[in-house]
């Protein structure tokens, strides 16, 4: 009925088509990947698979120790990286143009973000495993992952903090609010969705990592009894089953599916948290 109003020049239509096409292509790739995992993996995927010990080098049995190691390594990684990243991001975001070494920090972070994860693995093997004497352990793996995701996390968090309008700074200062209160009561709540998004991306990176962990947390398949035991993550497990274990494909696919579900869970949880936080911020 209002079609005539909606007539657009052909270049606009072309652009719209190209963008929609790109989006569809991406969605297509994702669903193809999902299908590729689900088809061979879904059969035999059960509670038992995630809750029992592996047998025959992972060919048979479940992946309970792998899931535990994954969560422990992720926990160590986040316990170190989140506070350090938040502190550094706050520091960097507060600098207007500022100190020369803020610029240097930023530049080195950008460089570090581009360093391949194998290099972080070697670094972790030397520093955490040998110098700190942690050996092949979940602690060493988590610390190495923390170093790996830190640059990325810091820059994403800094961008999130900088996106908070400057008016709030001026308003807060004009009211005599302390920097502490400005940060805690205004800036952090306003930036919370962006910070959580950065967190989710960092977690996804950490969960996907294999190379850095092979040198640091090792690939022992036993149930870890402490942070100083070696343990393998889901990604390492998938890699190992696919490359080194004859007949390991079925369980590799199942593990990949579990990894995907884990990511989905973390993603949903963070989104919910983000919604709650910004909802609460408004109250």
């Amino acid at each position, binding site marked *: 009925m209002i079609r005539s109003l909606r007539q657009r020049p052909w270049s606009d239509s072309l652009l719209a088509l190209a963008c929609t096409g790109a989006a569809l292509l991406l969605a297509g790739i994702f669903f193809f990947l999902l299908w590729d995992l689900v088809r061979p993996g879904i059969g035999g995927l059960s509670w038992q698979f995630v809750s029992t010990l592996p047998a025959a080098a992972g060919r048979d049995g479940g992946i309970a120790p792998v899931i535990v190691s994954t969560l422990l390594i992720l926990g160590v990684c986040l316990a170190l990286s989140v506070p350090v990243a938040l502190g550094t991001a706050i520091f960097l975001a507060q600098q*207007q*143009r500022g100190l020369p070494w803020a610029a240097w920090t930023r530049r080195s972070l950008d460089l570090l973000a581009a360093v391949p994860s194998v290099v972080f693995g070697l670094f972790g093997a030397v520093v955490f495993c040998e110098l700190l004497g942690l050996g092949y352990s979940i602690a060493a793996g988590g610390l190495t992952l923390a170093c790996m995701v830190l640059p990325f996390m810091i820059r994403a968090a800094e961008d999130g903090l900088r996106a908070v*309008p400057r*008016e*709030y*700074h*001026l*308003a*807060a*200062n*004009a*009211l*005599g*609010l*302390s920097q502490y*209160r400005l940060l805690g*009561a*205004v800036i952090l*709540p*306003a930036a919370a969705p962006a910070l959580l998004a950065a967190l989710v991306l960092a977690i996804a990176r950490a969960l996907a990592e294999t190379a850095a962990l092979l040198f640091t947390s090792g690939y022992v398949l036993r149930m870890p009894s402490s942070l100083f035991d070696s343990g393998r993550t889901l990604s390492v497990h998938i890699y190992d089953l696919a490359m080194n274990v004859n007949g390991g494909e079925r369980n590799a696919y199942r593990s990949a599916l579990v990894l995907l579900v884990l990511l989905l869970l973390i993603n949903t949880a963070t989104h919910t948290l983000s919604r709650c936080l910004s909802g609460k*911020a*408004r*109250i």
Partner: protein
Amino acid sequence: MHANPVADPAARFTGSNATGHSCAQSVPAADAAPALTLRDVTVAYHDRVVLRDVSLQLAVGRVTALLGPSGCGKSSLLQCCNRLSDLIDGCRVQGNIRVFGEDILAAACDLRRLRKRVGMIFQKANPFPLSIRRNIELPLIEHGVRDAQQRDHIMEKVLRDVGLWQEVRDRLQAPAQSLSGGQQQRLCIARALALAPDILLMDEPCSALDPIAGGRIEELIGELRGRYSIVLVTHNLFQARRVADDVALLWPMPDGSRLLEFAPRETIFSAPQHELTGLYLRGAMG
């Protein structure tokens, strides 16, 4: 922050009251102790002087309109009066500014206390992205009002003062951003009033609003007269004429803007001392 060597007596604009004498003649209500005294205030950004030797005395309880062409440094002048200039990269302030006799450019000045005494309203309403209630609570908590009941009491009072109480009493938990532009600006005024300031600096508080919402703010300024000393930056000469008791006109000069004239409203509109003032106030220039 006061290290910028800017004085160049030879280049001084002879018609200005840079030396303070022509100002002294026109200080309104000279018998009352001044709320705000500026003496030879010079402001520079990265060594570019934007304001030179501005001297003013604002009497208690009066509304002073600060006029001048765009970019002549009106906002910069306001920002010196609550030291918001400290936050601005490269901004340097020289001279002497006193709030009820207290030197606020001194290093020992307590900024928190200063900003409690000297409130500021910005051109664009800037409530925090929090609830209406929280917007007013936050500064109260910061300034030590521990008792929640007392905070509620103050909140109701200031929201009534700005004529917002009836409109928001049932939705104090709603986000401040859900208010209209005019309501947001009134909320910002209420937030400033909650701290019981002595002086209110208002930087074009109506210019982002439609005439009705702007008119509402203007009325409000009229109501606040007497209880607060108000500096009102505006480009609206009619507004200045309607609400101001005194009018100050800044004028850009090649080496930084000067205070061209400062006088009670009736005087400056009917018998300006400078030709430029007359032209500007008749809307023929600027």
